[in-house]
């Protein structure tokens, strides 16, 4: 058995990946707070370290050293399991994402797309179980909202992914990035990006679709009973999800680790940096949306998913199929 290639390297890669992601998460919170502050005409964190750069460290220390409070009325095991269940899929999804030319994060499997879809489906469990086990009406409402929302938005999301799949002609994400596309393919793809982005917002429970945790109605929704590191895990899951989905979007829509027009395509080490730059731009989009678009009501959100997004996504898929059949 080839221990080196089957065990040691993947484990090393996983460790590196997790470290990078957790650091990325920490500094994403800083990035968001700084940016939001700019949108809000204020300064944001600026006390801990230069430009508040140590703020994430301070936050982490605070979260970790907080007293563990487990309310008496919760379903203890599920309650403790839920934050982990929320975090793990957010990390696992990274396994198939290509980060540089010919280099996937963990493995180049030929079911990359299916992996993303499957893990995205598991993600909602953490939230649902958290809400259910908390034994609190607000949490329960948050969990119900979350499950309904995720299921609703996974449908159009899946349809869009299938359309991309049709264009790419294969399940592997690595080959998706490597295969050159015709100009009309790019245009057709980008036309769908806004809708896809909306689905992603709903999928990651980000504002304006943060209905499961609307602090103005449900206090904190499914997180109401969580504190300290358990809350931090949910927080981590949400932010790592943001990074993950941004990476997926960068990969699917913007050529992943490649520079436009095949520039410097031989420099392999540039790949991760190019990808990171694209991800940071996409994250900016997340935060920009949060600062400027209001939150719909829950029923309006569902109406939008079922009455607009789903028909549009099905229509898009059909047209894509026709395009692929006739032009490709």
């Amino acid at each position, binding site marked *: 058995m080839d221990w080196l290639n089957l065990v040691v390297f993947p484990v090393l890669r996983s460790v590196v990946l997790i470290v990078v992601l957790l650091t990325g998460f920490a500094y994403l919170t800083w990035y968001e707070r700084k940016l939001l502050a700019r949108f809000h005409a204020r300064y944001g964190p600026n006390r801990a370290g230069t430009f508040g750069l140590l703020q994430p460290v301070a936050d982490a220390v605070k979260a970790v050293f907080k007293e563990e409070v487990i309310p008496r009325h919760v379903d203890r095991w599920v309650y403790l399991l839920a934050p982990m269940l929320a975090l793990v899929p957010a990390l696992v999804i990274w396994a198939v994402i290509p980060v540089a030319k010919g280099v996937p994060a963990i493995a180049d499997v030929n079911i990359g797309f299916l992996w993303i879809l499957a893990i995205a489906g598991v993600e909602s469990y953490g939230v649902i179980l958290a809400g259910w086990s908390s034994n609190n*009406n607000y949490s329960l409402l948050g969990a119900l909202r979350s499950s309904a929302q995720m299921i609703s938005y996974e449908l159009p999301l899946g349809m869009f992914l299938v359309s991309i799949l049709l264009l790419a002609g294969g399940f592997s994400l690595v080959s998706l990035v490597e295969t050159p596309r015709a100009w009309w393919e790019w245009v057709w793809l980008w036309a769908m990006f806004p809708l896809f982005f909306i689905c992603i917002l709903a999928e990651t429970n980000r504002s304006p679709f943060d209905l499961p945790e609307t602090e103005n109605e449900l206090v904190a929704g499914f997180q109401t009973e969580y504190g300290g590191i358990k809350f931090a895990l949910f927080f981590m899951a949400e932010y790592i999800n943001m990074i993950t989905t941004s990476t997926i979007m960068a990969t699917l829509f913007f050529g992943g680790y490649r520079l436009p027009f095949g520039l410097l395509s031989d420099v392999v080490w540039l790949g991760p940096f190019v990808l990171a730059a694209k991800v940071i731009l996409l994250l900016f989009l997340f935060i920009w949306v949060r*600062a400027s678009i209001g939150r*719909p009501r829950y029923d309006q959100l569902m109406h939008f998913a079922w009455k607009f997004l789903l028909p549009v996504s099905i229509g898009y898929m059909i047209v894509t199929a026709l395009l692929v059949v006739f032009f490709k």
Partner: protein
Amino acid sequence: MLNVAPRFREYETLPSLNDPSIPALPPLPTGESEDTRRIVERFGEDILAAGLHNGQQIVYVKPERLLELAAFVKDDPKLAYEAVVDVSAIDRLKLPIGADDARFQVVHQLRSYARKQHLMIVAPCVGNETPTVPSLGNLFAGAIWPEREVLDLMGITFTGHPDPRRILMPDSWPNHPLRKDVPLGGEEVPFTLTWGDPEFATLGKQILPAESVPPKLPPGMNRENMIINMGPHHPSTHGVLRLVVELEGETVVNVDPDLGYLHSGFEKTGENKRYKDFVYYTDRMDYLSSMNNNFGYVLAVEKLLGLEIPERAQVIRVIMSELQRIASHLFWLSTHALDVSGTGMSLLMYATRERERILDLFEMVCGARLTLSYIRVGGVWRDLPEAFINNLRDLLAVLPRYFDDYEAMLTHAPLWQERLEGIGKLSRADVINMGLTGPMLRGSGVDWDLRRDAPYGGYENYDFKVPVYTEGDCYARYLVRMEEMRQSVRIIEQALRNLPDGLFRTDDRKVSLPPRAELDVSMEALIHHFKLMTEGFRVPAGMVYHAIEASKGELGFFVVSDGSAVPYRLHVRGPSFNNLYAISKMSRGEMLSDIVTNIGSIDIVLGEVDR
């Protein structure tokens, strides 16, 4: 050991019950008006007294015919008093009344929006220890909550009341605090400076045995559905409001507000403070618009005093009142946007940024930013500082541009419209019947603004539009408030143009302090100063209800004076309290999220709701 006993302020004694020189209190009305004549013609003997007092129409009616009278004034097309805006009561225990006179009188404030008339109906209660009086709650929904308040604080039973529960105090509270035989309170505080004393032995170790009482479900709620408890610590109830919400799925079946978490007995306190000392307390009621609270209270007292206010003081007051309205509306806008859509965070910051500039101006004139107490009986505290006018002009120049910005963010944003349009709908008949005021009224098509229709403090000299929308939903109320801010800017601009020189405070030395310099040269000034500081000023016996258009609606002060320097009865009609009554009707059948929208749209401040 130093032992300091708690000290309570001694007030001058009230007039003796047996002193024949003291007339009936509160004084009976004299003369007549068209309306009172019509009422007397119809009810004859059963009207105990009717006429004018301090320029207000007052009718005293026997309690057994109160309901009939209320129905008559409501339905008679020539009277058409459509709304009860306030209900309060007077406990006359310490007033010189005869042995047969009723101890309690219930006072109803009625309003005719069409005829721009105000009518006070006073009904003595039957029975002195367990007083009863018929309830107007079935005729005017606007009387339901004020009557519950009277029931709670005065212990008057309203027969036929649709919902006779206490409203502010806990159900188990042993007394009715506003009765005159209930002491002011104030427990003896053990106070010592020696750490060895036994009082300190348990310091920090006290365990308060509190019995856990399962909360009673409000009447009409079904335990089969999900009952959730919004508040008292909830991010969007704007304070310590508790709403018991019955949900079916996410649809609201029933809402029952539970008030009183912030009840601090302002009225009782006011009845134990001299007139001039209560100004500072008014700040704490609607703490987002303390200028307007000062203004309303001061005007009521000045009406009792019959005081003339110098022109300059009047204009300064108008400027302050309108600035406060803008500040309050800005804060409403920011929190409303935050509640409705999480994104309002940006708007919250933008609007508070401008509000901050207004607070800076307040700080210039009086040194405080929130609890201002700038408007005093007789005028204002100090004259405007030199830089004020220019700073204000700078602010006025930019404010409309900022309003445009906010409107660009919200007014035509589809998500904002979707969240607000058709939500919390109230018809014209509803708002009048429920006694709602302010933007709630104007958002439902009632063209009424006290500044224009019952001008006070010189508002008749200004030219401004009263925005009225007929839709009656949250969006209409939003538009009303946005337009009101622009109109306030117009009023301030006019006021600045017409700001005269002269006194900023009346020179009537019986009411206002002499300037410091005068004390050095004038014995008389010293005496006035001494009298004012130690005793305050005496206010002629009388009864007055004075209402102003505060930023949240009609802010009324009902003051009964017995001729001393301390108000005998002081009642505050807070717009937030009466407007909040509408929350159940607005939210029923809507989604959970819409409750939050509705609370924001009513624009409450709990300090004023609970008082």
